[in-house]
């Protein structure tokens, strides 16, 4: 049991020291819509989504495909790390305005 935790601790330390190349993508929320609503990224790269909520009201960025959810207060930005991702299409949505807040990340081969 102790050994498991030591290994776990090492992996945390190692992975936080790693110098991974991270690609940054900005997505705005304007009038309960994601702009852009579709982004194309390369597979196999670490990705930082910078979500900028330009609306007054809070929104929740959620994606079942990416297994991420985060609340974004009005007039503020948050960062969400995803990836590296395999090629395909990963949809996300704004939980509080699902009719309009829909988007997807399309992952292409390098």
């Amino acid at each position, binding site marked *: 049991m102790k050994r498991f935790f030591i290994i776990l601790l090492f992996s945390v330390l190692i992975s936080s020291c790693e110098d991974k190349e991270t690609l940054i993508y900005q997505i705005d929320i304007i009038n309960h819509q994601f702009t852009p609503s579709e982004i194309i990224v390369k597979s196999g790269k*670490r990705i930082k989504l910078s979500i900028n909520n330009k609306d*007054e*009201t809070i929104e929740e960025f959620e994606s*079942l495909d990416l297994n*991420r959810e985060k*609340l*974004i207060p009005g007039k503020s930005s948050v960062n969400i*790390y995803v990836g590296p991702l395999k090629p395909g299409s990963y949809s996300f949505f704004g939980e*509080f305005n699902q009719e309009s807040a829909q988007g997807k990340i399309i992952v292409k081969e390098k």
Partner: protein
Amino acid sequence: MFSTVTIIFREFFEISIILSVILFTTKNIFERNLYVAIGLVFGVTFSIFLALGFHHLTNSLNGFGQEFLDVFILTIAVLMVSYTVIFIGKQSKDFSKNLSTTAELINSGKKPLIAISIIIASTLIREGMEIILFLNGLYSSGVSLTNMINGALIGSIFAILLGYFVYLGLLKFTYKYVFFLTSWLLIFFSATMASKIPLYLASADVMTFLNDPLWNSSWLLSEHSIIGKILGVLIGYDTDPTGMQLIFYLSTIAFISYNLYSVKKNPKIA
């Protein structure tokens, strides 16, 4: 108003099912209603505090305050559920092969019951904060208070009904299997919460080791379906779990079941 109903229902849905499981698994415990009430009150109060300070929370810890709070709450809940299962399981075994009776649990003291309050409070905080922020957002965007309250009430009533049906369904299981069912419902609940911890850490770019999904079972059962969502809450069903999620999930099951089923070398004589 309809969108309010659906959103509130979805948010409440998870709380409702979790509460049904907790209430079912603790139904024989003396005075548990008091501790459930304590958990509910603390949960709601803390949710409100966190909602008030939400901007600061979000910006804290390099902008990952939400993620670290979720990790913290999930860890506490995993520990409390594990403790509850193991403690109550041990009590049952120390005395006899039968279920713990009311008298036996009174004798063993009330210390473990606060764990129930903590489990309930932690569930409410995680989900409740979202609901409060959503309703606050609606209100400040000009939605009428009556529409909002009506929508919220209808949505939460449906969610509570669903939870109630889950509870009734669990009650149908015969007496013989209740201990087994109780322990394993809680074990899976604990493992489910544990398996979410690596997701929040990965979102915050911490511990990204073994972060790739191992498989994709959406062809078998989609996470978007109702059954998929219910299984998601009950056993942590995920169409594309990562290696680290699997480690957390299986370790939790292994840890609790080892402690629950291991036989003491010198059993206490009642």
